[in-house]
Every structure is written in C-alpha cells, then in structure tokens.
C-alpha cells in the first residue's frame, strides 16, 4: 500500500474523534448566533447530546484492534477504554456545567466547544503509539485547558491559574518533546511498538542520550499527572480554575496523562524497568507523602482535593512501578474509580459555592448534615470512597493497586501506601466532621439544589457502589483493555 494514500474507509474507525471535531465547531457557530443565557442552555444541552453520540460510537469500537493511518493512529481496546472514560467525564462535567457555567456567566458556545476539544486531545493522546500523535493530542488537550482555566475573567485567581498552568505547562511540554527527540536521536524511531522491537534486538541498549531522553519523558509526564516534585502548579491551578474545570482537569487530564504514560512505558521501556522503577519508586513515595501531608493542613476544600489528587497519582504510580503488564488493569480500574469519586466531590463543592466567590472554605460545610442531608450524605460517600473505605470503589481500587505491589514483593511500598491512606482518612473525615458534628458557622450561603447536581451525584454514587460491590464487570473490562500489552 502506498504510504501517502489514506483509504477513506479508515475514517469510520475514528467516528468519535470526528464527532468531537465537528460538533464543537457547530457549537461555536451556534454560540455566535445566540446570546446570553439562551446560548448557554442550548450549547450545554447540545454538548451533552454530542458526547452521548460520541460515547455510542466509541462503545461500538470496543473489541476492535487495528492500526490506521499508516500506523500513526491505533484503534484498540486500551484506547477505547480511555475514550469511553473521557466521554463519561465529559458528560458528567457538562451536565454540572449546565447549571454552574450558567450561574458563573461563563457558559457559552466556546466553553462547551473547548471542553469537547479537550476531550478530543485526550483521546488522540491515548490512542496512538506514535510519539508525534501523542504529542499532538497532548497539545490539543493542554491548549483547551489553558483557556478554560482562565474563563472567570473577573477573578484574579482564575487568571493566575491560567497563566501559571500555561507557563509551567509549556515548559513541561518542552521537556516531553525534547525527551522524544532524544530517544529519536539515539534510535531513529518514533513509534513505540517499533522501539520495542528495536530494543529486543539490541539488548542491552544504553546510550547517554537515550537515558536522558527517558528521564525527560518522565519529567514531562510527571508534570501532567501532577507527581511530586512536578506538582507545584496543581493546588493554585485547581483552586483558581472554575470548579467544573477543576473536576475536568483532576480527572480527565490525569487519566489521559496516565493513559499515554502507561502505553509508552509498558510497550517500549519494559526492558529498562530496573532503571526507571527506582526513580519512580522515589517519585511515588514522595507524591503520596507530600500530597497527603500537605492536604492535612488545608482549610479550603477545593485545595484539599487538589492535594488529595496529587496523593492519588502516587497510589497509581505504586502499581506503575511493578511494570506488571497483566496487572496494569489495576491502574485503569483505579483511574475509573478515582474519576467518579472526584467528579462527585467537586460537584458538591460546586453546589455549595456562592456565585462569583471562588471560595470553598471548610467552614461552609459546617452543619451541612442538618441543612442539606442529601448533599451531606453524597459528600460522605465520595469522601469515604476517596479514603478507601469498603465497600466503595475507592477501596477496591486501592486494594487492587497495592496488591500489585505486594505481588511484586514491594512490601515497603505497599506499607507506605496503606499508611498514607490512613493519614488521608484524617482530612477526608475532617470534612465529614464539619458536616455532621459542627453547627452551622455564620451566615451560610443558600445551597444550590439544582437537579443537574443531584443527577451527577446519583450517577457517581451508583458507579462507586457498583464498582465497589460488584467489581467483576469493570475489572474484566479493564483487563481486556490492557490485553494489548501482553
């Protein structure tokens, strides 16, 4: 087949991506034609509908494994798993935004279009084993999010978040690109699968340029997954960004970065596991400890959740270190559980926020158990799941991730991980303590009882309970998804 010809029939494999390219353009046009709250409502609803269609197309691809567009793009169960996860996140976030973005006055064609473009980037990022495609996906995702972070134009912290994320993000992207370039320089290959074959032939392979390139890759991905010491941006950006975007970033971006990281490392760099696992061991321990200990002293729930998301990246890294390709499903399962519990928790934060006041002091949770028992119950479930209390999905996730470490005989890592989750229980419970044990402090803002929030919370709770009590379905899916590595 002539390499320069792209058969038209291959386009049917990328229907979800086409959907997520065309639909936002439509939203932009509609956004230009309508004004005010009407525009916000119409584009929001269209965004939800569009994402549901895209999810439908994605689910149809489940089970297909093939490379398209001259090996630049691949359709496989691993990518499909992540695509479906991103679309679920997108659907949940846009349902929340139907109300939230409207309230904050940021809901418009662009807002939803950018959300969808961001997911497009994530999809591209996780569905390719070619460095260039991965990089393009990463940039599409990042650019959308730089803008989304700064949408609250009147709010200094939001603008700060956007600028900070942009500058540091650009820096980290440079690292990633440089790392890819160095690996290309030392091997002449940009494709991860080709790299794997190359290393099999050329064992043992080690040049200085390659080692530096590998290190740069870790730095670049480490930034996107917010692992310590590349986490500095996380708290400020998560706190400053509009809360719906925080939820979107904390789940979507992290999952996408992990998706690409796992694919790259577990395909090509397994032979060098003894080299990088030592580095990542340190990173994982630091990430868990710094994330959890710093979260202990936060007074702002949004910021606390930001640090907790750092800690959760650490838990996932624990399974990453073992380089057990069969058990990579534990990370996928964890990302799934993590996404639902975080979106749920951020939704409660959104419901309690006052308009224009980007502030979620823990005091505002005081007495919520009396003021609004339903939200308090939901928040408790999300927090308990984050803390890893059975029978919720968070527990199963931790159990699975740490069992991977124990299986590979990283006993100390598992002990450190579990002790960290005991530390984490303190700050999650602190929020519960405010909700149930304390009287309402001061003049509480009215709780926003929009049905959109309730819907999202119920969906998340259902997912958490289902994944926790009957993990089998989800684990089988995750196991099938990582089948591509074996």
């Amino acid at each position, binding site marked *: 087949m002539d390499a320069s010809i792209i058969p038209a029939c291959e386009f049917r494999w990328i229907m979800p991506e086409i959907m997520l390219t065309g639909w936002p353009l439509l939203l932009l046009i509609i956004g230009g034609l309508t004004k005010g709250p009407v525009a916000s409502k119409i584009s929001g609803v269209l965004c939800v509908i569009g994402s549901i269609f895209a999810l439908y197309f994605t689910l149809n691809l489940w089970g297909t494994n093939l490379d398209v567009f001259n090996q630049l793009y691949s359709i496989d169960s691993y990518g499909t798993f992540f695509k479906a996860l991103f679309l679920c996140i997108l659907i949940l976030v846009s349902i929340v935004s139907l109300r939230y973005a409207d309230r904050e006055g940021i809901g418009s064609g662009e807002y939803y279009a950018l959300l969808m473009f961001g997911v497009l980037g994530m999809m591209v990022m996780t569905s390719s084993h070619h460095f260039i495609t991965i990089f393009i996906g990463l940039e599409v995702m990042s650019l959308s999010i730089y803008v989304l972070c700064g949408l609250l134009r009147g709010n200094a912290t939001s603008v700060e978040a956007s600028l900070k994320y942009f500058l540091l993000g650009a820096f980290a992207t440079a690292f990633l690109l440089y790392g890819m370039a160095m690996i290309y320089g030392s091997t002449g290959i940009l494709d991860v699968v080709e790299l794997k074959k190359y290393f099999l032939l050329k064992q043992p392979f080690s040049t200085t340029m390659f080692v530096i390139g590998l290190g740069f890759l870790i730095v670049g991905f480490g930034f996107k997954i917010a692992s310590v010491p590349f986490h500095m941006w996380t708290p400020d950006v998560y706190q400053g960004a509009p809360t719906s975007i925080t939820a979107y970033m904390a789940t979507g971006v992290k999952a996408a970065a992990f998706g690409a990281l796992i694919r790259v490392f577990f395909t090509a760099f397994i032979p060098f596991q003894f080299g990088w696992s030592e580095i990542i061991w340190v990173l994982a321990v630091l990430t868990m400890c710094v994330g959890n200990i710093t979260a202990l002293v936060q007074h702002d729930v949004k910021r606390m959740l930001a640090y907790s998301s750092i800690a959760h990246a650490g838990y996932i890294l624990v399974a990453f270190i073992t380089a057990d390709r069969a058990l990579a499903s534990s990370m996928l399962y964890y990302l799934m559980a993590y996404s639902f519990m975080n979106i749920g928790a951020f939704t409660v934060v959104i419901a309690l926020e006052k308009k224009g006041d980007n502030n979620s002091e823990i005091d505002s949770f005081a007495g919520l*158990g*009396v003021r609004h*028992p339903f939200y308090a119950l939901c928040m408790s479930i999300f927090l*308990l799941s984050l803390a890893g*209390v*059975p*029978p919720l999905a968070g*527990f199963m996730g931790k*159990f699975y991730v*740490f*069992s991977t470490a*124990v*299986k590979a005989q990283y*006993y100390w890592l*598992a*002990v450190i991980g*579990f*002790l960290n*989750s*005991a530390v984490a*229980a*303190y700050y999650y*419970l*602190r929020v519960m*303590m405010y909700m*149930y*044990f304390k009287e309402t402090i001061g003049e509480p803002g009215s709780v926003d009882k929009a049905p959109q929030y309730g819907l999202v919370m119920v969906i998340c709770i259902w997912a958490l309970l289902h994944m926790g009590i009957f*993990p*089998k379905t989800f*684990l089988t899916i995750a196991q099938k998804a990582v089948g591509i590595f074996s």
Partner: protein
Amino acid sequence: MTVMSVPILSFLIYFPLLGAVILLFANRRNSLFIKVFTLVISLVELAASIPLFFKFDDAAKTMQFVEKADWFPEWGISYLLGIDGISLLLVLLTTFLTVICVLCSWKAIEERVKEYYITFLFLETAMIGTLCALDLVLFYVFWELMLIPMYLLIGVWGGPRRIYAAIKFFLFTMAGSVLMLVAILTLYFYYYNATGIYTFSVLELYKASIPIVKQYWLFGAFALSFAIKVPMFPVHTWLPDAHTEAPTAGSVILAGVLLKMGTYGFIRFAIPLFPAAAIDAVPLMSVLAVIGIIYGAIVSMMQPDLKRLIAFSSVSHLGYVMLGIFAFNMQGVQGGIYQMLNHGISTGGLFLIVGMIYERRHTRMISDFGGIAKVMPIFAVFFMIITLSSIALPGTNGFVGEFLILLGAFKSNVVYGTLATTGVVLGAVYMLWMFQRVMFGVVTKEENRNLKDLGGREILILVSMVFFIILMGVYPKMFFNKMDTTVVEYLAFVKSKSAQSRVLEQNTVAPRVAKEEANTNLTR
C-alpha cells in the same frame, strides 16, 4: 461442612440494613414511629438469631450454617459465611445487646433521632458481618465498615470532647487495619505461589505452611491491628476517650461487641493462620496482658469520672481475655471466650447504669453523688448485682470466666498467673470503692434528694442483663457445650500446625546451616 438451604446468616446480616434503608424514607418528625420500628427490627433480628443456638450442632467440628457464593472467582474472593461455637455466642451477644441499646436510647437521644437509629442498624449489619465472614476480603470489608457508624455515633451524639475522641478512635483503628491488609495480601500471594490457588478463604489459608520468619511479620501485622481493637496495653489510649464521649448505647456496643472483635480476630485469624509465631509470641502477649490487667485496675482506681473508670476497667478485663487466649490450654481459651461474653454483659450493664444516672443528673463525676442508695433503692439493687458480676463474685458470670482464665494461666506459667490474680483484688478495690462513694453514706448534694427511681423500661433492660449474669454464673454448661468441640479442635489444630511448621523449619534450616559450614570450611 454442611451447606444450609436457608441463608440464615445472610438474613441476619442484611435484615438490619434493610431496616436502615426503610428508615431512610421515614418521616423525621415522627420519632415514636422511628423508635418502635427500630425496636421491632432489632427484636426480629434477635428472634431470628435464637434458632442458631438450638440448631447448632455441638459435636460438629467444622463451620456451620455455611453459605458460599462466588464474588470474584478470578481472584479467589468469595462470599463465604459460617459460624462455629465461638462466633455463635458472639453473634447472639450482638443481637441481644442491640435490642438493649435501642431500648436504652429511647429517651437519651432526642436530636437527629432518625439518623441515630439508621446508624445503629447499619452498625449491627457490620458487626454480624464481621463475625460471620470467613473470607479475608469480606471480613476486612465488614471490619472497616464498623468504623463509620461508630465514628458517627461518638462524633454526633457524644459528649463535649466527642470530636477529638471520634477522630482518635477512627485513626487508631484504621492505622492498625491497613497493616493487616498488607499482611492479608502477602499471605494471599504466598499461598498462590505455594499451591497455585488464588483464595482468600480462611479455611483454605489455614492449610498454608509459612516459613517462620514470614509468620513473625504477618502475625505482627495482624496482631497489631487486633491489639488496637482489644485494646491491649500500650495501644489502649483511644478507648477511655471513646468510651467517655460516646452516648450510653455507643459505649455499651463498643464495650460489648466492638472490643470483642479484637479478641475474636486473634482466635479466628491471627493465631490459627500463624500458629508458630503466635506460640513464640506468648511471652510478649502475656506480659502485655498482665500489664494491662494491673495497669488498667490501678488507673481505674483513681478516676473521678464513672465512665472513665469503667473504660479503664475494660482494659483490665480484656487483659484477662488475652491472657486466657495466650495460655493455649483448654481452660485458658474457654475462660477467655467466656470472659468475652461476660464483659459484654457486665460492663455493658455498668455503662447502662451510668447512662441512667447521667440522664437524671447530667453528671458522671463520682464526687457529685453519695447516698444514692437511699433515694433510688431499685437502682441500687441492680447496680450492686452488676458491680459484683464485674468483680467476679462466685455465682455470677464473671467468676466462671476469670476462674478458668487464672486456672489456665497458672497451668501455663505460674508467674503470669500470680500477677494476674492481684488484678482480681485490685478489681474489687476500685469497683467497691466506687460503689461505696456513689451509693452509700449520706446524701451530700441537694440535687440528689429527689431523683426518680427506675421506670418500667429501665427495669426491663436491667432485668434482662441480670438474668444473663445469673444464668451464665449458675449454669455455664449451657454455653460451654456450644464451644467445647470448637475449642478442642482449635487447640489441637494450633498445636499440631505449629509443631509441623517447626519441623519444616528444622528441615530447611539444618541443610542450609550445614551447607554454610561446608562453605566456610572450604574458604578456610
């Protein structure tokens, strides 16, 4: 192993949960309905648990009422329930105490009544689940699940320092149990590597023969987790705070059932899974138990607060249980198990008594009382009986348990036995002195003159407690029959298993030593 057709254990576990879910939709203002409904649920639960006692086959050596279903077969996680003579009695204690707790909260809880009873039913589900689970993952799920309702009970309906106590309680227990989880996983993969089977079923894992060094680590992790729950000295410090701040029913359940989960954990998991390590740990555990007995008693003596006094006496009583269990002979272990039940009844009773007087006076300081016996004669009678049971007067349940434990302790080691016996004397000192200061003498405080004596509901509660105190003291055979076979089997298993792993150790160590010697000879 007989598989029952009627899933009675599952019913016992999920019936309270069902009740809690229904209560979720009850009208919050109709608190009478909520109370009556909860009482009915807990009574049905009690009624459903009584057949267990009579249908239980005393002679059977295996688990009974077994229920087994696949949960996640690829990992070997199963839904495996079953009880033996030990957990049977504890399940009955739980269902009985829950009814008592619902009754004793009748007037004491006025705020957030609906949430309170939901929490309580939820707690019952978790407790019975923990006692029946024979799959380590299932056990761990219920074990952790117990924490949440107890945390809420202390934190929402507790005393002035409730938040501190609740968080301390949660963190202590959680920190211990996460280490246990690592140990569970290690054991699981070890068993897989040895046999090629993935299983979390305890009955399967009992068969594993684990190298002794590994046993030390694993036993250490399990033992720490359970010792915190018991609580053993020196990890007991959460208990006085939790007991003091918890509402009366919370204290009763905490003393009656939750602490037993620690000792039960030793008997069901830590010791039979790692018998050689457990036997090697006898000196350490016994010394800690003896320290707990004497330390708990001495500290109780000096407590100005009634609830705190009883809390420290729990440390002392649970020290006996641990001493008995680690005596590794028939008397010690049976006495330990019996004392678990006794402690549930008599210390639970003491907490009820304190709760009743607290409802009237809103203080628990010993110095605020004096001469109550004249004002409240009926109350005085019950208080006396329960106090004597706690001191282990012959004829009450406490005597049977403590006597057996001391017998066992003397049989295994005279020093521990002798030291532990001083605890009996000290126990009499602090309890009787407390009783004297509260009940006898002249009425010194004006507020105490017009206290109302017990009402019908309170008498009903205490009569049922006293009934068991005397029944268990006079006719212990009824209960020992249930656990005899189980304990004999358990001891035989632990002894043969530990001997076996020692033989294995010799066989593996000896050649290695010989080889090393050969090597050193060569280098020379």
